[in-house]
């Protein structure tokens, strides 16, 4: 059971902290021109953060207790290839579809 006081303390502080993280550069730097070297690095934020987020989730899924699941690897691969070749919607459909299909086939 989560105590009310712990919950509210955490939620309010997490709300404030998360806002400050999001506000940080955009809020305090504002319209200032960023140096060239920084712009160069910032172009890679997306491709740097997202694979680092999803790779451990694919390789060590929480749902299997961290055991690598070949079906999830294949489904992730399908989502990636379709995402590169076709579109975002089909990437999501391919990922979940492959997962369901293989889970169904393997019982």
């Amino acid at each position, binding site marked *: 059971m989560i105590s009310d006081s712990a919950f509210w303390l955490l939620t309010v502080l997490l709300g404030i902290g998360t806002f400050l993280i999001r506000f940080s550069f955009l809020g305090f730097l504002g319209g200032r021109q960023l140096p060239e070297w920084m712009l160069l690095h910032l172009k890679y*934020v997306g491709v740097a953060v*997202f694979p680092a987020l999803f790779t451990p989730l694919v390789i060590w899924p929480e749902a299997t207790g961290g055991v690598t699941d070949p079906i999830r690897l294949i489904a992730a691969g399908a989502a990636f290839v379709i995402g590169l070749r076709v579109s975002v919607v089909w990437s999501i459909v391919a990922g979940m579809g492959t997962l369901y299909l293989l889970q169904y086939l393997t019982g």
Partner: protein
Amino acid sequence: MNRRAFWRGYRDCAPFILIVVPYSMLFGVVARDAGLDLLQTMSMSVLVIAGASQFTALALLKDQAPVFIALMAALAVNLRMAMYSAALVPHLGHARLGTRALMAYLMVDQAFAVAVNRYEKPPAMTPSEKVAYYFGCMMLICPAWYGFTLLGALLGQAIPPELSLDFAVPVCFIALTAPLIRSLPHAIAAAVATLASLLFAGLPWSLGLFVAAFLAMVTGAQAELFLRRRARRATP
């Protein structure tokens, strides 16, 4: 003109509804399971709007972790957004302070990725179109996040585990990554991020994510500089 950019953003973000709906419902269900009431569940979703950190904080609180530890772990999960914030400066930094604060509050992964992807592709947008486009993206994702958290919390029934909804999260991020891989340096950065995230997975407080992202960013930038230098040498 701006209205068109707004609806363009709204449409471009639409596919992610497929992910946001089950994910936010899952949060509603999990929060009620953990013993939160309706007001608490919704307060958390509205004050924080950052799914991964909300799940982290709840799980730790449920395990009777001290508030400070739960807070630090959840904030570490959100640190990546400082990088989003910086990446948005060149595109949105010109907006008024109040607008920037609102943009900061609404900054979520999917909309960030869709917006930056659009900004960096031709045809170039005007600064005010970029702002309108950003709000178009967020205006779809954020209300859905609130609404379906509420629905999940009201239904309160555990979603059957056969649906493997946990897998919707990595699939979402895979779908976000693919269109961002536009050049060789982008591909190299993604590969480094993948390997490094596994290598540093053992670090506490999700710091592995941060280290991996940092290494990938530096590698991508260096690869671009290297290719530029080589191209310059080839055509003197």
